[in-house]
């Protein structure tokens, strides 16, 4: 059970190619991002990003070894070389980026702390929450964010903290508090678990910025580029209208941007040290960013999260990928 493996190798890409699989650190269970499905396979947005990466590098989405990690051990696992990429709803902050020996390769989900209220309260905005009772999980940044937000907006509040997610929801359902606050993506999964999902709504405000994205070790620029541009390729594919279904027809598209993306012209893949059809494999086997979003957390999933900030820049969101050229 002991395996000798080059630790913190400076050439992760070559290592992945030689061992033939990608080690991907994921969450132990966060619906829509990484959780076991009914067939006991890992599924979710973060999981799909690893699958896309495996398709780009090795041509096969199944060549991923998932390592479920808790929040506390995730960075160590990356630093020690146990995983090649951390794709585990990790918020990009300055401290993490500068002091942990890590690099954030981009953002695959813009999250932020939000509020959920009972519709019967007839509250339309977080500004009307003066004097409300808030339910939240103990020991998270949620409490600190709320304190900051309340001071800034000059409202008073009472808070009840619970140990687990289920207890927070129970507190909200039984009416011990008026508002449940956590990350917006978490609010939507709370709503699906309410006995009457239609009785609650998520307010439009966000009180914190939580950009989530894949993380790699610092000091391996080649691998960093592969991860960053695989993410950009998925976002560009959505912008160019390339989906897993129409990708074969798109290969003969006259749009030069699509030809470059799919590797029919140019050598974009070779510049990353990959096959020129790297993005083709990723999009064909996993789908473009929009497909990944809708399948895991959006319209086609039980969570039904609206695109919001995560819509493309030309459709009202801020998902913007530099061009592949």
């Amino acid at each position, binding site marked *: 059970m002991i395996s000798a493996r080059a630790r913190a190798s400076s050439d992760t890409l070559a290592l992945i190619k030689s061992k033939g699989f990608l080690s991907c650190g994921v969450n132990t269970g966060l619906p829509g991002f990484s959780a076991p499905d009914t067939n006991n396979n890992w599924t979710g947005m973060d999981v799909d990003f690893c699958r896309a990466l495996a398709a780009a590098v090795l041509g096969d989405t199944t060549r991923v070894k998932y390592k479920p990690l808790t929040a506390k051990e995730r960075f160590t696992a990356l*630093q020690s070389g146990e995983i090649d990429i951390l794709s585990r709803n990790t918020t990009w902050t300055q401290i993490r980026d500068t002091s942990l020996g890590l690099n954030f390769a981009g953002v695959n989900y813009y999250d932020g702390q939000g509020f959920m209220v009972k519709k019967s309260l007839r509250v339309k905005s977080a500004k009307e929450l003066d004097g409300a009772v808030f339910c939240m999980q103990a020991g998270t940044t949620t409490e600190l964010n709320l304190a900051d937000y309340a001071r800034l907006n000059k409202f008073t509040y009472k808070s009840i903290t619970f140990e687990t997610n289920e207890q927070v929801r129970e507190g909200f359902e039984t009416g011990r508090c008026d508002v449940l606050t956590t990350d917006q993506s978490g609010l939507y999964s709370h709503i699906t678990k309410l006995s009457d999902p239609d009785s609650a709504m998520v307010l439009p405000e966000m009180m914190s910025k939580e950009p989530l994205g894949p993380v790699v070790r610092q000091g391996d620029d080649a691998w960093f580029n592969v991860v960053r541009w695989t993410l950009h390729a998925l976002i560009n594919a959505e912008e160019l209208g390339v989906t897993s279904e129409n990708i074969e027809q798109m290969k003969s598209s006259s749009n030069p941007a699509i030809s470059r993306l799919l590797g029919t012209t140019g050598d974009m893949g070779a510049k990353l040290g990959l096959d020129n059809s790297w993005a083709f494999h990723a999009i064909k086997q996993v789908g473009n960013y929009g497909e990944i979003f809708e399948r895991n957390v959006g319209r086609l999933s039980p969570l039904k999260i609206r695109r919001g900030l995560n819509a493309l820049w030309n459709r009202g969101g801020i998902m913007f990928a530099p061009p592949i050229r």
Partner: protein
Amino acid sequence: MSATENGWQPAPDLPPPSSSVGIIGWIRQNLFSSPLNIFLTVVGLYIIYKAGVPILDWVFWSADFSGEDQSACTSGGACWVFVGQRLSFFIYGFYPESEYWRINVLFVLLAVLIIPQMIPAFPHKKWLGWFFLVGFPIVSYVLLLGGSFSLPHVETEKWGGLMLTLVISFVGIVFALPLGTLLALGRRSDMPVIRAICVGFIELWRGVPLISVLFMASVMLPLFLSEGAHFNKLLRALIGIVMFQSAYMAEVVRGGLQAIPKGQYEAAAALGLGYWRSMGLVILPQALKLVIPGIVNTFIALFKDTTLVLIIGLLDILASVQAAITDPAWSAVAAEGYVFTAVAFWIFCFGMSRYSQGLERRLDTGHKKR
């Protein structure tokens, strides 16, 4: 002179009045013997009725048992459909479905090895026991991990559920007992260096909480290891658990050693037995027998402590239930999941407890105070 020779025979005893024997007698004596007892009985029955009926209703009468998904859970009680649908995950974790038979073989083998131990008259029990402690772990290792005998390799990240819980507790039990016995002997040794090492080891591991041992194993250890050396996470956790439990086991066994009268040591020495033979043949068999309750207590605690591995991202039975109940395809099914886990734990812990009681009765040589 007996009564029959005298020609006089006592009339046969009358049976006791029907109100003082059987169920009715028991009830009268124990539940309705005084006004206070009558009052307490009525209150108790009322509480049982008030608490018990809704629980039974939730668990059985208005629960849903068959179906495919959330839509089958309409009657308002427990949604056992969820547990049924995810049972394979709770038992096998991420183990590939085509390889489930390997785990099933081990479950059957485990039962085959344990059941004869419960039957006093079963022959060759000693050999079965040795196979259980030595052969079975090797067979399990080969079968579960694969990679040899043309079995596909299944990396430990795919292990999970009940199977992982059993692996961790079994490894903990099989290694902690011999290691703990050695430590206990070492702590009572006349050799100062050995004694110091054993005391240091025991006090170090007993002085830290298991949760911090696991954290060290999973978070700190990888950073200390030299470049290129890479320990499997499960192995790191297992080593931590074995170290931790053997320290506790050592103290339990030491309790047994202290209870053996000095005469036994002297008798063993008088027979010309050396240290290891006097320990192995005279002292330890008596000492271990004395502390069976303590040993099994430690085992049960260990079995339940294994759930702590969920904080280092190992998906044991509790962690896999917790991961499954967040599935948005199901509404609130947390209670069902936790009840299932509790029942699974209870079955194993109760089994261990019953087995230890049987063992105590069988090994009893009349030294116990009654």
